[in-house]
């Protein structure tokens, strides 16, 4: 009995962090798939989202859903500006683009320290209490994260499949030149795709604000995990990022429950290295020509 409760708890925790990893990794893989940019600043946009969520929720006392929207909007627009001015010049050069995102990350993180100080701030829960099903009890605050992440992802999926812009993004990801020939304005698609990508990171940050705390340094871990997830799922593959995120969240939660969190980290990485060696393009990725 005790074991089953422990495992159920581990599964729930796995889903929560898996949902967060998925949101991070989907955005990360989107920028790579479309723009061939490895965005090392992705975690900083997560952090900005967490801060925006924190300030709007605590200071203005407005519904959390509105806070999420504001965070996505502000960070998304910022991302578009950053892409247009600082990342587009490096389109021909993946390595310089990578270093440029690194520089952007340094600037944003230290800007946040300068503005808001280095100390972590606890964020109040959005909802309290817990859901009891038989002997199991799940806290609402975690269930809300899972539900919200699922909803955000469904909206994102609809956007990518049904709207003109989403289709244009997929076309550019598949083949930039052919997309150009079809009359897609690639120069407009890039900033928009980057904006959507970092808006997803911001949503993840705002959602996780109440679960962890908010500080200028919260972006580092999700960033590393997104990196791992994207390798696991396949660079540039959105379904791969979803599957990879949930798988990694589950593995992390269960191995941490059984072996402790440090061993869990090593096991995760070894597993991913193994997968990468057997299938270099990841679980669901496509082989590059």
């Amino acid at each position, binding site marked *: 009995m005790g074991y089953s409760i422990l495992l159920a708890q581990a599964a729930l925790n796995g889903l929560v962090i898996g949902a967060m990893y998925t949101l991070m990794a989907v955005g990360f893989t989107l920028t790579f798939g479309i723009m061939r940019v*490895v965005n*090392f600043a992705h975690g900083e946009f997560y952090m900005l989202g967490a801060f925006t969520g924190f300030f709007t929720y605590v200071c203005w006392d407005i519904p959390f859903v509105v806070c999420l929207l504001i965070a996505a909007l502000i960070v998304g627009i910022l991302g578009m500006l950053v892409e247009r001015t*600082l990342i587009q*010049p*490096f389109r021909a*050069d*993946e*390595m*310089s683009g990578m*270093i*440029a995102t*690194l*520089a*952007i*990350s*340094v*600037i944003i*993180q*230290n*800007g946040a*320290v*300068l503005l808001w100080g280095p100390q972590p701030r606890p964020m109040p829960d959005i909802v309290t209490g817990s859901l009891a099903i038989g002997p199991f009890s799940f806290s609402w605050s975690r269930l809300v994260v899972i539900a919200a992440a699922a909803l955000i992802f469904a909206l994102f999926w609809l956007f990518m499949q049904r709207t003109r812009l989403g289709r244009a993004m997929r076309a550019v990801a598949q083949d930039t030149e052919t997309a150009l020939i079809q009359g897609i304005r690639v120069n407009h698609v890039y900033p928009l795709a980057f904006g959507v990508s970092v808006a997803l990171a911001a949503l993840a940050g705002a959602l996780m604000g109440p679960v962890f705390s908010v500080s200028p340094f919260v972006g580092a871990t999700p960033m*590393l995990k997104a*990196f*791992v997830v994207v*390798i696991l799922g396949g*660079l540039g593959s959105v379904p791969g990022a979803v599957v990879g995120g949930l798988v990694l969240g589950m593995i992390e939660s269960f191995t941490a429950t059984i072996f402790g969190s*440090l*061993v869990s*980290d*090593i096991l995760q*990485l*070894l597993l*991913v*290295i193994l997968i*990468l*060696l057997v299938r*270099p*393009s990841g679980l669901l990725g496509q082989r*590059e020509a």
Partner: protein
Amino acid sequence: MDASGVIAGHVEQRAPSRRRWRFAVAGFVLLAAALALPQLTTNQFHLHLANLMLLNAIFAVSLGLIASVGQISLGHAAFVAAGAYISALAAMNLKIPPIFGILIAGLVTGFAAVLLGKVLLRLRGVYFVLVTFLAGQVFTLVALNWESVTHGANGLVGIPAISLFGFPLATRLRFYYFALAAFVLVLTFVWALMRSQYGRAFRSIAENIRLAESSGIDVSHYQVVAFALGSGIAGATGAIMVHYIRFLSPDSFTFNDSVAYITMLVVGGRTGLIGGVLGALFLTPLPEFLRGFVGAQHIIYGVILLAVLLFLPNGLVSLGRFFVRRSGAETEASP
């Protein structure tokens, strides 16, 4: 721009010996300046910075060696850390003199890189970058967890300094000359290597891997050689550094350091030997120059990094070429 390029090419064709001679003179002048430099300052912190610049320059050059076969390693710091741990533990537990520890560290990390390289180098491009990133992370975590050997997060304290013939290099000034010797040694070795048959093979692989393969060049052999040499140099230099800093923890060399080495290489200039050196000489002391801007120094560092990338796409080396070209054009015009 094009015209000056033509002129430079012209000069190069007409007088290759004169150009080589000029390089040799410049090298000797720089070496003499480097030898005299520590006599000009008594500031210990400046000496410390100079030491770090030399060691970082070796790290960047060794990474550049791996990059010269078209592979970028995001786990370079793991080899640095491995070398540091090997030599530090050998000195502390087995009482092996650091100078031998450094050699052992270089050999072991180089050999480990051969074994790892045979497996990992099957991956190319971005996938190699990613797998080296993961391998580096695994190393940091293992160092953190293997407490009986590495003392975990507490780190190793009281690592002995290098001692040459009973003469300990415990001061910053003495260590400076040792680091300078190591730097010149590595630079000469890589320079000679790049001029040999190996260097030509490396360049052809970096330029077009498939063409090199179909021309009968054993690509995986040369890539493993470059990876092993680059990693071995990094391991030995990590060992040198740990006998200077004399403290080592899993946080001493992490992913951030791997990224720092790549940054030095890209900012300095990826092609050629000098790029990594310039990058290290520019970026290592940069945060210190910005110390006056309390709180904003890292932001300014990021801005400078962006500016270099935006305005000097081929790195700081292109700045040097620009001046060389101008002086070349002047001598052309003056007679």
